[in-house]
């Protein structure tokens, strides 16, 4: 059996007395694009902070490519690529310098980093911007650089936390298509969003509301199960009911 790209089991988390996640569990298989859909405040960012180990998960288990992210944190993080919601590029450095920094943090040597940077930028049609300072790039291009960066160390799992925030429609579409292509190539993807138009019918869907998983499964399957016509209705039905 293939090892899932991500396994989340019985994870709960609270900020003081306020419960942010309550017994959350789901799996992202390799080669699948899973959409973590939920309204603002559903717990998506908290879950991402737990997967990336910015927070610790005191209960439950999170495994990335089979590695427990608490007990084998380094192995788990080595197989994880992340695009955070906030911009994380150094604006005063060039695209190349930003990517090199990341490559070194993942232990890639100079020559190997060089090769992979060239390949990733070419894949995103960004080769001509390699020596450009990030400050001079538009929001859409900056996001592409962040995706290239997240892929440099060839992760098993790619996490994207609302990556289309602030992007225009063509950039959003390009990003959605690119990420789906990555999943077709075998990568596991977890994409957090509250925008239903970013979801494809064949995607895996995880609906999170008030810290609890309300539904998991392929989009078309969930639509059929709930006997509704569209994803918008799925969202409405699952996020209206009380916790």
């Amino acid at each position: 059996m293939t090892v899932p790209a991500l396994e989340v089991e019985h994870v709960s988390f609270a900020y003081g007395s306020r419960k942010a996640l309550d017994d959350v569990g789901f799996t992202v298989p390799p080669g699948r694009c899973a959409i973590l859909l939920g309204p603002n405040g559903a717990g998506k960012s908290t879950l991402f902070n737990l997967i990336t180990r910015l927070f610790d998960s005191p209960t439950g288990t999170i495994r990335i490519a089979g590695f427990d992210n608490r007990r084998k944190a380094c192995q788990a993080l080595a197989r994880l690529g992340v695009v955070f919601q906030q911009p994380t590029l150094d604006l005063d450095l060039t695209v190349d310098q930003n990517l090199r920094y990341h490559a070194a943090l993942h232990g890639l040597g100079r020559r190997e980093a060089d090769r992979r940077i060239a390949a990733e930028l070419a894949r995103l049609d960004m080769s001509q911007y390699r020596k450009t300072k990030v400050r001079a790039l538009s929001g859409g291009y900056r996001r592409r650089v962040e995706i290239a960066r997240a892929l440099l160390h060839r992760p098993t799992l790619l996490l994207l936390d609302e990556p289309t925030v602030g992007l225009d429609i063509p950039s959003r579409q390009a990003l959605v298509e690119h990420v789906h292509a990555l999943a077709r190539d075998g990568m596991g993807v977890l994409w957090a969003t509250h925008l239903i138009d970013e979801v494809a019918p064949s995607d895996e869907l995880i609906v999170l509301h008030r810290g609890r998983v309300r539904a998991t499964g392929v989009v078309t399957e969930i639509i059929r199960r709930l006997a509704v016509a569209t994803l918008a209705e799925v969202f409405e039905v699952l996020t209206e009911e009380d916790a």
Partner: protein
Amino acid sequence: MHYLRALSAIVGRELLRFLHQRGRFVAALVRPLVWLFIFAAGFRSTLGIAVIPPYQTYILYEEYITPGLVGMILLFNGMQSSLSMVYDREMGSMRILLVAPLPRWYLLTSKLLASTCVSILQAYLFLAIAYLYGIQPPPVGYLQVLPALVLGGLMLGALGMFLSSFIKQLENFAGVMNFVIFPMFFLSTALYPLWRLQESSPLLATLARYNPFSQAVELIRFALYGRFEPYAFGYTLITMLVFLALAIWGYNPSKGLMTRRGR
């Protein structure tokens, strides 16, 4: 190899960033130079004819405060990099560092070493200008002061890092300025020798003696004149280790302050 690559990348990034921010570069130099050229000129003969180690003879005030101003560079830079960590965390680039597949203590220590390298660069530039101004310690002092700068820089950087682990927002940096930097600087041997403080207030003198910044300044002062001060060295080393341990604790996802913060 992975560890070394990451360390050199973190240091390289910090130096590049520093060189790109010319305003910060100039400001970091102007501050101690104003103290040297203006403040110290006004108090030129204030030390009278007292001879205190490591000096062989009585000295002018400018000469006395030069090591203190080097300490000031380390102090301000240590705190400024703590500011940049709060900013980085808000902006997200600290996240990129913390999700690297290396132990967190190593990443934080590397970050600390990187900001110390920037401090040392500034300190030597300041010493070079001071040399032209006539503050000329023995040549060997410039070499011997290097380890003292590394240790002092690490100690103050670790303090800044610890503070940054529980500062929620950028605005709180003004508080750090008022409640940490100024008391640490003025209640130290950077601007006046202990015996002067002792004359006016034994309590303040005691506080200054146990201020880790004082010990870092004395370590730098002695090293700059070719001498080793074991007490100041031991004190600075121990406080550095304590602050570093606290900083690593502060950034630990399960034990520190990260979990309680949320977003």
